[in-house]
């Protein structure tokens, strides 16, 4: 049925004589049947496509002759055949387009041009980025999402109504204390796991997705990528990586998932490492900002140190990791006014997807904390970590913050909040804990995604690097600050 398939097909792309001759010869030599046309198989063979070469080699008795054609054709050109064929095809496309496309340059609206310019020029682009971060991330996601909404859903609804009701129900119906603790109260599946997912993560991630979709649809993100490309190149990534890394400020787990959109394995590994190490997630960021905001010097020290680590580790890993630096090509779409319906649809479907993906992990974390508590494993770990805490210049109860931080990043940060409120920490101790906690944890959900996305070997290597490195950074920072006699 092949010939009657497209009676109206008049199109034919002709390459130069040498290539056409080679194609005809190869097509004649091909015996097996392929899902693509023989001509395409021949073209891919000439370009030495590994997958096709392998398939053809295994099934074509004429492979030696075919390979001879490829080799003799290759020798007739100075450039790689891949390049020659691509170039000729492009010329063909151009000649077609010259017949159908007419461009009459219109002067873009002044406003558009002006906006275009200021988004990508560093002098104006950087302040604009900071404004967007301040209003979009800090104000909307941080204060409104992580503050107002979380306070309402978690503080009012859960603490006020849902949790007491579940606790009472469990207390009345279940006689065994350990099962009660599994389902309800401080670490229960319902009262901790689901509460975290619904009351803390969902509003934060929801507001973040909304802001992100807005930026995405407005065409701003590619401009941001262009703006930061130069810096990112130094750390082995290209500007495009700004998207997963920004996403990390909402949730590192999700951002690790999104890092699969990066082009090379090398970039994906560097991005995963940086996300796990130096990007605090929104939940953690919210608590940290709230904590450190009371001491501006501490806040600046924390931010400066974490940024330093981010750049340093990025730079070093780009040096150490084999492979070439990424090329950057991304077209700049025009800025456009986003459509509300599209944005809402996108936001909702992302929230739904995220929620489905995250709930099982939260339940698992609840169960693990419960088991750790009940078996006394947690207490043993906390006691064992006391010397480490002392090396950091911290009281031994800080160990609990780190341990729980692994289960939920923000849980660790929240524990820090309690410690500080009780007056147990000095300014230096606060900064040291905040820095170590920021660097230290990929939370358990993020770690699970790292396993899934990067494979166990890479994930374990990253975790094995981060755990000691985070504490080392904390110890060094503590030494430097105390030696300098700063009080912050």
């Amino acid at each position: 049925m092949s010939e009657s398939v497209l009676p109206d097909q008049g199109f034919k792309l002709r390459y130069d004589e040498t290539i056409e001759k080679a194609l005809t010869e190869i097509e004649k030599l091909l015996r097996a049947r392929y899902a693509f046309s023989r001509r395409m198989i021949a073209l891919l063979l000439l370009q030495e496509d590994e997958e096709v070469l392998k398939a053809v080699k295994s099934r074509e008795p004429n492979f030696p002759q075919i390979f001879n054609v490829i080799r003799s054709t290759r020798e007739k050109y100075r450039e790689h055949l891949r390049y020659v064929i691509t170039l000729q095809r492009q010329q063909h496309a151009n000649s077609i387009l010259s017949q159908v496309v007419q461009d009459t340059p219109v002067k873009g609206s002044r406003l558009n041009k002006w906006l275009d310019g200021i988004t990508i020029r560093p002098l104006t682009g950087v302040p604009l980025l900071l404004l967007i971060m301040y209003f979009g991330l800090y104000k909307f996601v941080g204060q409104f999402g992580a503050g107002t909404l979380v306070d309402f859903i978690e503080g009012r609804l859960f603490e006020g109504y849902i949790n007491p009701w579940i606790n009472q129900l469990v207390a009345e119906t279940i006689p065994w204390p350990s099962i009660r603790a599994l389902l309800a109260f401080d670490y229960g599946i319902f009262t901790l796991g689901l509460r975290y997912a619904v009351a803390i993560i969902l509003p934060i991630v929801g507001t973040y997705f909304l802001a992100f979709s807005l930026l995405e649809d407005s065409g701003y993100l590619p401009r941001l990528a262009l703006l930061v490309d130069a810096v990112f190149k130094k750390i082995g990534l290209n500007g495009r990586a700004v998207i997963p890394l920004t996403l990390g400020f909402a949730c590192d787990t999700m951002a690790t998932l999104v890092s699969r959109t990066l082009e090379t394995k090398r970039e994906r590994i560097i991005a995963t490492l940086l996300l796990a190490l130096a990007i605090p997630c929104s939940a953690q960021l919210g608590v940290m900002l709230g904590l450190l905001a009371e001491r501006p010097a501490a806040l600046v020290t924390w931010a400066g140190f974490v940024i330093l680590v981010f750049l340093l580790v990025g730079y070093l890993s780009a040096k150490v990791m084999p492979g070439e630096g990424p090329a950057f090509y991304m077209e700049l779409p025009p800025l456009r006014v986003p459509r509300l319906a599209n944005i809402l649809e996108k936001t909702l479907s992302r929230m739904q997807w995220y929620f489905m993906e995250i709930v099982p992990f939260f339940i698992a974390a609840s169960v693990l904390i419960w088991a750790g508590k009940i078996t006394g494993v947690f207490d043993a770990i906390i006691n064992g970590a006391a010397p480490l805490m002392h090396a950091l210049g911290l009281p031994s109860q800080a160990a609990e913050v780190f341990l729980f931080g692994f289960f939920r990043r923000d849980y660790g940060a929240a524990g820090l909040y309690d410690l500080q409120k009780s007056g147990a920490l000095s300014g230096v101790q606060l900064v040291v804990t905040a820095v170590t906690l920021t660097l230290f944890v990929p939370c358990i959900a993020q770690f699970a995604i790292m396993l899934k996305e990067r494979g166990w070997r890479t994930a374990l290597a990253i975790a094995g690097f981060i755990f000691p490195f985070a504490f080392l950074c904390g110890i060094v920072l503590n030494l430097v600050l105390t030696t300098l006699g700063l009080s912050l």
Partner: protein
Amino acid sequence: MTARKENPALRGNAGLLRSDKKPANGKTKKLILVGSPNVGKSVIFNSLTGSYVTVSNYPGTTVEVTRGKGRFYQEVYEVVDTPGMYSLFPITEEERVTRTLLFREKPDVVVHVVDAKNLERMLPLTLQLLEAGLPVILTVNMMDEAEAMGRRIDLLRLSEILGIPVVGTAATSHHGLDLLKKAVVEYVRKRVA
């Protein structure tokens, strides 16, 4: 076109990589969307499909493939949204997966979505898809933006030159999508006839 004449294996035969799908003359037809990133493929996918959408990793990869079902003019189509692709000669894992999909799944129609503003960069892939002997419909999306830039495209002439249906769309504002559905149905009917 030579590619087609010399390609008796366009469908129904074992491919370069063996097929695991039923032949295309079953009830559900298959439509594969291809194109480079940021051309509005997902928007078109969403408007072609209903709510039964599944996202899964392509076997053995971390690349996501989205599948959904749509009904155009009484015909049920399985619609596959593929990862971004610049060329049939793959460089990224995404491109490799998309090519494998095209190899294996024996689409009844391949809808190549391109950005009207960047036809120069994207038409080569259309040419490659045609060279591969695939049943292509070219969808020139973002016509509104191209027009705003002062670009006019003679779609009829382009369709004549390529010998395939060419549809102009502005997917974000839902322009031209009905035309696309109609073109798909007519094209597949004609090819079966």
